[in-house]
Structures are given as C-alpha cells and as structure tokens.
C-alpha cells in the first residue's frame, strides 16, 4: 500500500476507532438569560426571600402551596422543573450553580457570543468552542452528520466547524422532490459547488451528503422508546430529531438545541413556568426515549447569564451575572449540586446586585470534552483560560 498522507490519516483514525466511541454531546442553550436563582432555589439564603418578595420560590418545608423541591437540604428545584427529579434520583443529573462567564456587558448578544465562542474577540481565536473541538480532533472518516444545530441557522457554538449542519426538521430535508430528476440535480449541484470557493464548496458538499443519509431515515416511521412523551413544542420536536439521529447511528457527535424566551424583564412567573416545563419534560422524555443509549450521551444546559438577585417593579428580573447549568448523562456523577456558593447578602453581591460567578462555565465544558469527547488538546479549545475539573464525571 502506498503511504499517502490520506492513508496515514485513515490508519490513525482506524486505530482510534478501536477506542470506545465518543459520547454524543447535546448542548441546550437557554437564550435570553435564564433566572438560575429561581430554577434552582437557594432556599437557605434569607437574602433571597428579602430580594424577591413576590418572585421568590417558597422553601420546601412550607406546609402547602407552590414550593421548591428539596435537592440537598440547601438547594431546591423549581416545581415547574419537577420532571427532572427522576434524572436527579437516578443520579444522572448534576447541577452547577453560581456558574457563568466573565462577560461584564450584560448584553445578550455579547454574552451569548462570548459564551459560544468561549473566548474574548480580542484573542483573535475564531469560531465557536464546539467548532474548535472538532477542528482539533480531526474530521477524516467522520460523518457529515457529526455536528448539527437544530434550527434554521447554525449557532455560533458551531461556527467554523469543519463539518456542521443547520437542521430544522429532517422530515423536510429533501432535494427538489417535485423536479423531474433529483439525481441529475444532485449531480449538477455537486459539480457546480465542487468548483466554488472553499466555504461554499464545503457547505454544498455537506448538504448533498446529508440529503442522502436523511432520505434513508425518512423512510422509517418513528416511535419514541420507553413510552416517552415529548412536549408538543419546538424544543420537544428538536429533541426527538436528535434522539432519532443518535439511535440511527449516523455518527452524530454534537447537537445544539435552543430554547428561547428566558428574557423575563416583565411578568416573569407566567413566562418562565411554561419554559421550565418544556425544558424538564423535554429532557425527561429524551432520557426515557434513549433508554440504554443514554449511557453514551451527555447533555449540557446553559444560558448566557443569570438574572439580577432582586426583582424589578414589573414582577420581572433584569440581566445579572451567575446562573445555573445542568449536566445530564449516563456517565455523570449526578444527584449533586456543585457550587462555590458566593452568598446573596449585601457585600456578597456584585454591583449592581448580581450573584457572583464562582465557577467558570468553561470548567464544565472542558471536563465534558476531555472526559467524554476524546479531546486531548483542551488548551486549543479554550486558549488562555486556567481550567479546573469540577468532578462532574468520575
């Protein structure tokens, strides 16, 4: 055999294929700044109830009414997230609290961009953190469906990935079904895009390859496993698609799913309860649907920032700093709230009244990539950041 560079690479990757396969990482982004303090309630904090007289979620030991569900004697789950309790009891869900980025602008876009790029613009490092993960682990022999953003557009997290696809719903992903000859069209497009500049050539080639795979999947009807009932929502539908791709074994390594609408400046209670139910019921159904396959899956839920410690006069909360992350998966050492709790008394808060960030969200992501995604060069994914594992995995 002639030892071309291509063959060499293939051998390296074949050798790697003997190692256990990587997990599928599902990144759920709660866009708008989810109110970590009400999702996972620090009910031992007297200041919490002082700062949130009308929005605060009552202690678990209240005799009746809406109250937090006790997790560890210190933190309680918002009752609207009760569907997550099974995952918690199964010890497959870890919660990271007072976690966040070093963004100070409190701007959604800056903070989301920064979190998704996971590095300051000034560093000159481009693309999203998941994109860099894929850049640094090689793509030879990997599936064109290795990285998917569920939605009409690719999220910043995957921007710059060697292979990544925006997928709204694969039932709709087909080539000119009405045209006389889809095969002739595919051939013509392959030729035109093959000769285009790099970005377009890559995007065109990927779309064509994925069309082939999904054509095959579409033939089958799908019934979620374990009697799982997904919420009838965009989020629920996205999760079903991710579950189908995982179970179909098409080589999916990362999927990004958005859940929008957490920017609760006004009338928060009404907005946030249905969002929380959507989130919790969606993840619970996803876990049930996957069954044994869940062992090889990690789900990370994050938001660009938490919200201010005190409520505003419109029964809402303004942009704050630290928030909460959820990490679920077969390998997670769950049933624990991981935190370096900064406290909520005056003097403990950061101006103008925000929970301080005591765990960098990149610590969490780095641990996932290193422990479950085969990442050996983490400093190239998060350059210039001192990283510390937080014991999310054994």
């Amino acid at each position, binding site marked *: 055999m002639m030892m071309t560079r291509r063959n060499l690479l293939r051998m390296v990757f074949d050798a790697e294929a003997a190692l256990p396969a990587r997990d599928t990482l599902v990144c759920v982004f709660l866009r708008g700044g989810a109110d970590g303090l009400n999702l996972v309630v620090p009910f031992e904090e007297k200041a919490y109830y002082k700062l949130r007289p009308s929005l605060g979620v009552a202690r678990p030991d209240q005799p009746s009414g809406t109250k937090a569900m006790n997790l560890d004697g210190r933190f309680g789950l918002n009752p609207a997230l009760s569907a997550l309790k099974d995952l918690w009891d199964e010890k497959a869900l870890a919660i990271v609290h007072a976690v966040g980025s070093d963004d100070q602008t*409190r701007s959604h876009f800056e903070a989301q961009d920064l979190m998704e790029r996971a590095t300051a613009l000034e560093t000159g490092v481009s693309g999203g953190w998941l994109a860099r993960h894929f850049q640094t682990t090689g793509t030879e022999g990997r599936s064109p469906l290795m990285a998917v953003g569920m939605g*009409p557009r690719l999220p910043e997290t995957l*921007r710059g990935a060697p292979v990544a696809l925006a997928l709204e719903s694969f039932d709709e*992903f087909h080539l000119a079904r009405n045209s006389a000859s889809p095969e002739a069209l595919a051939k013509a497009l392959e030729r035109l895009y093959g000769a285009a500049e790099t*970005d377009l050539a890559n995007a065109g080639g990927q779309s064509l390859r994925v069309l082939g795979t999904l054509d095959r999947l579409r033939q089958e009807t799908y019934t979620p496993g374990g009697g799982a009932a997904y919420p009838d929502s965009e989020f629920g539908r996205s999760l079903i698609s991710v579950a189908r791709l995982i179970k179909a074994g098409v080589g999916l390594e990362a999927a990004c799913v958005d859940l929008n609408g957490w920017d609760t*400046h006004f009338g928060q209670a009404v907005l946030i309860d249905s969002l929380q139910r959507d989130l919790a019921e969606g993840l619970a159904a996803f876990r049930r649907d996957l069954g044994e396959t869940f062992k090889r899956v990690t789900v990370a839920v994050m938001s660009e920032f938490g919200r201010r410690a005190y409520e505003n006069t419109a029964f*809402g909360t303004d942009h704050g700093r630290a928030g909460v992350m959820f990490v679920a998966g077969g390998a997670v050492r769950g049933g624990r709230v991981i935190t370096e709790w900064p406290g909520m008394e005056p003097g403990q808060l950061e101006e103008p009244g925000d929970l301080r960030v005591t765990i960098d969200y990149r610590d969490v992501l780095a641990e996932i990539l290193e422990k479950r995604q085969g990442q050996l060069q983490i400093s190239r994914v998060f350059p210039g950041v001192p990283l510390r594992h937080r014991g999310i995995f054994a």
Partner: protein
Amino acid sequence: MKRRDFLKVGAAGAALATSGCGKIRAKLGDWLGDGGVPDAFSVAAGAETDDRVHLLNRAAFGPWPGDLERVAKLGTEGWIEEQLNPAGINDIACTMRTRIFESLHMKPGDMYEFKKKVVEEELTRYTVLQAVYSKRQLYEVMVEFWSDHFNIHIGKADCAWLLAPDQRDTIRAHAFGKFRDLVRTSALSPAMLVYLDGRENRKRKPDEMPNENYARELLELHTMGVHGGYTQRDVMEVARCLTGWTCRKENQLRKARVEFHAGSHDDGEKTVLGRTIPAGLKEQDLERVLDIVCAHPSTALYIAEKLCRRFIEDTPPPSAVAKVAKAFTDSGGDIRATLRATLSTGEFRAAKGRKFKRPFRFVVSALRAAGAETEARPALLKYLQSMGQAPFQHPTPDGYPDEQGPWLGTLMWRWNFALALTSNAIGGTTVDTAGLAKAMGAPAGSEPEWFLRHALGREGLPMEKETVREFAASASDPWHRRAQALGLVLASPAFQKC
C-alpha cells in the same frame, strides 16, 4: 353593521382583488410603462461581473429585467441620485400591487380591529412585494437595513398589531431622513415601547428600580455599539431619563397611545456619558439623551461600520468605515449623505461578489431576475421561514445577522426554492421563462448560456455552461428544459453571492 364586520367585507374584497385582478393590474402597470418584464432588454456579456449588476446587487435587491439599461442611461452617479430621491420615481405599478392591504393604513389603536393572522400576513406580504416590485429599490434596501437595526419581533406580546405602524411611521418615514429623528420616533413607537419593555419603565416610589431593557439596547444596538464606551452606570442613568414614557394597553381606552406620565418619571439629576442632565426636565430628558448619544463619535462609527458591512463586505475595510463615519458626522447624521458616501467609496466598487446573499435577498433577487409575477402568498413565505429569515421573525433585538456564517446551512432550501420557482411550483407565483428568454434575445436552444449571463451579470464559465446545459437536457420538453436551466442558474454558487 359593526365596524369589525365592515372591515371583514373590505378584507374579502381585497382578497378578491388579489386573486382575480392580478393580471389586470399587471397589464395596467404595462400601460403605465413601468411594470412587468419589458419586451426587450439587454444582458451583461463580459468575463467579469458587470459594474451595473454589482451596483444593483447591493443598492437594489438585484436587477429587474431592463434595470441595466436604466443605469446605463443615467450613469452610476445619476442612478444613485435618482434612487436617493424616491419621491421623484413613479412607483404606481408597485403601489397598485400593495395598496390592497388595509391593515397597513390604520392608526396603531385601530390595528386591534384585525385578527393577528391578518396583520402578520399583510405586513409580511407587503414587505416582500415592495422589495420585489418597488422602483425605489435603494429605499427598500434601507427599509430592510433599518428594520434589522431597530428589530422588533412580531411574536412578542402585541407587537404583531403595532408593527405595521412602526414600519410606516418609524422605519419608512425616516429611512432616508435624519438619524436622530429615526431614533426618536423609534423610542416613542408603540411597538418598540412594548418590545423592549419601555412602557414598563417607571419610578413612582423611591425604591422602585427602572426597567433598563430599552436603555441598554438604545446604547448597545441602536446608537453607540457595545464597545462604544458607555458603562453600566450610563445604562441605568438613561433608563432613569426615560421613566414615565408609556403606551396604553389593548384593554385600555385610547389603546396604543403613547404618553408621558410625570408621576412615573424619575425627575432627579442624571449623568449620561459624563454630561449632566439637571433635575426637573421631565419629558425633555429624552431629548437630552438623544442629543448626547446620537452625536457621540461612537454612534457615527457604529452606523458606518454596519452600513459598510451591509454594502461592502462582512469585515468592513476600516478605510471605508472612516469615510462613511465622517460623512455621517459632517452631515449631522443625514442618512442620504451617509449612503452617498458609502456607495461612492472605491472599497464598494472593488467588493464584487464578496457578500453571501442572506435568504431574503436571495429570494427577492431570484424573483427579480426571473421577472416573476408573485402575490407573495404563504407558499412563497414558507421558503423564507425555512431559511430562517422571514420578515419580523428575529426574536432578539440585534436583528438578523449580516455575515455569511450563520446562513451557509440554508443551501438546500435555496436549491429547492430556485427549482420550484422556475417550474411554477410555488402557489401564487409564476415565471414566464419563454417570455424572459425572448425578451433578452436568446436564440432557441441557447437559453442556458443566456440565463447565466442574465442572472450572474457575466459570461458563464465553461464548466457552468456545460453543467447547466447538461441538466437542462435531462428534461423532456422545452418548457422543462428552460425551467431547469434557469432554476439551476439561480441555485448555483455564483448566484448565492453578490
């Protein structure tokens, strides 16, 4: 007969008018000399993209058949000047197509008479039809630009009802005006007061905290840019200045009326960007804030950068940004002067093919290149939805992104749209490929080469010609061959760029 019923009858009449009289209207347009595809028009023939096509790709939503002659006749500068004075352009043919949408002519408070679905659909169809058919193309391009800049999501609270008045009274009224007027109108637009919670921003008791949502976006997205040099403190102070402005709700008398309530206003002294705003100015605080932020050098730079990103390239050359920012400052924020400066930079002329069309531009430019007859019905709008750029559907106030990255994943939809369009498989939209080929003077059988020239503004490359010819030949009859040829040209990588 109640008012609501009366309106229903009106809407039914309008629906009739769209379906039955479409052809008559188009014919009338012909008679007025400015509608439809002309009987004969020329196409570009050089090896490189024609300068006129480049101009029309950016300062318009791509050439409509015959536009090249117009630019040739007036010259580049003449054409730009004509476009900068839209009132002088006869746009009757377009107006005839879009005047049927009754909800677009209502006062904000009267909008609630309509069903949500009706107001959403009318505004969206209107927006697409204007972009396709208006002769005031640069104006429409700027309407899109400012709609992104002052983005409002149709899905938030009752924004659906308030968006059409915002489009009419804020964006369209000031798209070519003074920047400060535009920002001021936006600040007091009912839709914006709802979208960014300005109407909830009040201080009635000493311990009440203002809602800073609008104040933050005013500085970050509407004027100075996130790195414009303001602080968290400035955001809070601007929010204090704007306390008391509100908009009446749907269930109140005089709904959607914008009012200043002195009792909800924080009338203490404020400091914004180092400038003191004395106590007691009440609603004049707003004017002071606008004076300070609109004249701030960061604002000129930020607007210039956005214009250059839209008109020149994703990473705007600093040299062009500096020129445009200077024009903005020198003209006191005059949008036309700033645009004139943008389009006359050498950087603009040199940027041929460097932009990746966003889905809206791709769809509109394809309809224009094909000289399509469309009513912009849901079957067409669905494609914009699938590609993620339906008008007014961007949830967050930063507006749809301008750079190519987020849009590269939409290729399959573009391919399917292009083929469906030219095969007349989109409801309410038709293309006459035979008429188009005849008007450009393409000899029978050479349509592939001519469609390439027409849509790309240059001679097709040998590989392009061969591929399009082969694909066309795979169809069984001349009609399908033409449909496949034009469809593939519009689906090709070169047509995704501008």
